[in-house]
């Protein structure tokens, strides 16, 4: 299919983009890589009246700013593969990027686009929730930071108001003794994931001191697993009880049936992915100890 009619505007600066989005309100959408928006438009599931092309704005920096790593909204997914800051501080993030689409999509898709689109199976929203990132949102008049846990409201629904645009994502820098992992399963490489699990761990003296866990596929947006985060504290890295953690978590969720997987299959899959993610993170922690 082909998209419905719209008017096209190329933003020449961030202020220009925000002015245009302010002017168009509900009818305006920024377009970056278009890897999610254009399919939706081709299916006519999205029919914005005005597209504001932000591709030529300088929003593609990855930089440390005090206690956070700031990633500009236009950073393309391919940029993470050889970025030393991502590899050093955010191993689960680096794992997750490998599951995003395929090479052509990774060269063109952007983090701001993925976060704003809020596909329930997408990797970067899950990564943002896992790392307690702040989504930096601008409008003509205001700048606000929304914690990822409060940003994703449902499938394809976010806290963004008309006229607002994501300009950056800020990831708090972790402490030194820190690792993580991210695992996902989909029918074919690059397809929408059936479920994914991300883990981060802090550790000392061979045991876990703090943990975070995120799950996509259990609900309409990525959810944290506070029960498992608590369960893991104090567990030895050599035997963290990952299978039990998976079973406990799977019993606490209520995944949906869909055309790809039944709820029961997905529940079992989430238990197994939880086990794998914890084991991989603990193995990495032991290698670093």
């Amino acid at each position, binding site marked *: 299919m082909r998209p419905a009619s719209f008017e096209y505007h190329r933003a020449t600066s961030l202020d220009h983009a925000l002015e245009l989005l302010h002017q168009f309100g509900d009818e305006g959408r920024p377009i970056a890589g278009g890897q999610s928006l254009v399919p939706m438009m081709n299916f006519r599931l999205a029919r914005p009246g005005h597209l504001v092309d932000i591709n030529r704005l300088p929003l593609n920096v990855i930089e440390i700013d005090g206690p956070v790593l700031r990633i500009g909204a236009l950073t393309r997914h391919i940029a993470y593969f050889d970025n030393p800051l991502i590899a050093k501080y955010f191993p689960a993030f680096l794992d997750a990027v490998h599951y995003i689409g395929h*090479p052509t999509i990774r*060269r063109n898709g952007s983090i701001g686009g993925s976060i704003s689109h809020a596909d329930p199976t997408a990797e970067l929203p899950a990564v943002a929730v896992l790392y307690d990132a702040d989504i930096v949102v601008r409008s003509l008049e205001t700048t606000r930071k929304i914690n990822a846990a409060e940003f994703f409201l449902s499938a394809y629904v976010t806290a963004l108001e008309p006229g607002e645009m994501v300009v950056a994502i800020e990831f708090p820098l972790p402490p030194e003794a820190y690792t993580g992992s991210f695992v996902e399963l989909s029918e074919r490489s690059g397809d929408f994931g059936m479920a994914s699990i991300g883990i981060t761990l802090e550790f000392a003296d061979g045991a876990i001191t703090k943990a975070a866990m995120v799950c996509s596929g259990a609900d309409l947006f990525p959810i944290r697993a506070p029960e498992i985060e608590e369960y893991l504290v104090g567990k030895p890295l050599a035997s963290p009880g990952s299978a039990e953690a998976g079973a406990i978590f799977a019993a606490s969720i209520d995944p949906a049936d869909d055309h790809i997987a039944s709820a029961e299959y997905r529940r079992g899959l989430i238990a197994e992915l939880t086990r794998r993610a914890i084991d991989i993170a603990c193995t990495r922690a032991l290698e670093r100890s």
Partner: protein
Amino acid sequence: MIEITLEVNGVKKTLSVEPRRLLADVLRHEFGMSGVHIGCAHGACGCCTVHLDGTPRLSCLTFAVQCDNSSISTVESLGGTTADHPLQKAFRSEHGLQCGYCTPGFLMTLVPFVDEMVIQKRIPEDEEIREAMSGNICRCTGYHGIVSAVRKAVTDGLKSGAA
């Protein structure tokens, strides 16, 4: 309608387009590049892959108006009607195609990969080749022939570089 200038396979042309027109359609209908195949029109099959300023891009997920003053290459730029680009030759000799519908997309995705491997002077593992082409769907070959074709093109490229 918006006026844009595109350079397609070295030829510049200025034309007026509706913003909603996909780059894939404009390349086919306004530039006559019928090698740009449209399989799914939502970014799942890779058939419409072209190079936008040198980088592979799905032309079904791109609006032509976004490409003003850009340079675009399609499969027609590789080996012309004789299809004599080394990767095209390798596709023929290794049975990398049958019906041929997906082939332009595979070629445009894989030519930069082959070039990169030759620059790095190494023959990629099959797994790496499969990852490079994971955004392209082929219903005929079962992919083995395409993997062999890529390996052959890299091997040939390394030989001719050494000679």
